[in-house]
């Protein structure tokens, strides 16, 4: 696998779309390309952020935050 092929596979990898039989080869290439591979995979995670930002924000129930903060407060108390 050359680096361009690795890049294509990386974009599939970060969204969990590599098939099991592709993962072995991907992991071998990841090891072969070392830091360059790790840096590229990290950059690919920007796709997650982009997909989330592509959606119109949804309104949450006001009670959710109250419950969350109450749980956090309870957890912090000894």
């Amino acid at each position, binding site marked *: 696998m050359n680096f361009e092929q690795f890049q294509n596979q990386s974009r*599939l990898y970060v969204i969990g779309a590599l098939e099991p039989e592709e993962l072995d080869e991907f992991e071998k290439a990841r090891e072969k390309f070392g830091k360059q591979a790790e840096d590229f995979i990290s950059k690919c*995670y920007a796709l997650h952020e982009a*997909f989330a930002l592509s959606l119109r924000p949804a309104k949450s129930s006001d009670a959710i935050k109250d419950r969350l*903060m109450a749980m956090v407060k309870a957890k912090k108390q000894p």
Partner: protein
Amino acid sequence: MAQSESGPRTVPPPLEPGAPSDFELMKGIQAGDADALSQLYDRYNGILKALILRVIHNEAEADDLLQEIFMEIWNQAKNFSEQKGKPLGWMVTLARRRAIDGLRKKQAYARAEERLQNETEQQPDAWVHNATEEEIVLGDTRVLIRKVISSLPPAQQQAIELAFFRGMSQREIAAKTNTPLGTVKTRLELGLKKIYDGLKDLKDEL
């Protein structure tokens, strides 16, 4: 041609002057500052809720999951590393994983499928055409990202949506869309590359 130097960049909504950055809030959470979590919640609950809803298609379940996810952010903040990316990316990855896990575990899967089917019939390109007039006028990052996504052929958009928001494998997408496996792989590769490259271009405009 191989990619090089810088990766894609996305920019979350602009902050009020003087407001702490996401990194500063994450440091606060790591130090046990509940107010930092409160601010992070106010900043991103809408984005994360939209993501969860896109996966599970149920308002009440999405609210419950949102609460669980922010609790996980609080509990797992120590595992966040600035070197590995931005807080929003980390939160989205976490939220997506939880939402897809939740979807798979629930018997509600079948009901969600039915809802998705209905929504797809009523609104085929909902992923990229759900901007309000106000958002379009704002011309913000969201609109630019939508532009990149909406420039893809519908079949590529569909393959990416099923993989990202439904957690489907290539084989599952092939079966669902009655498309050869190799075609699904090509659609995903081409579509993701275009989005990745489009995001890289965005950073020159923002």
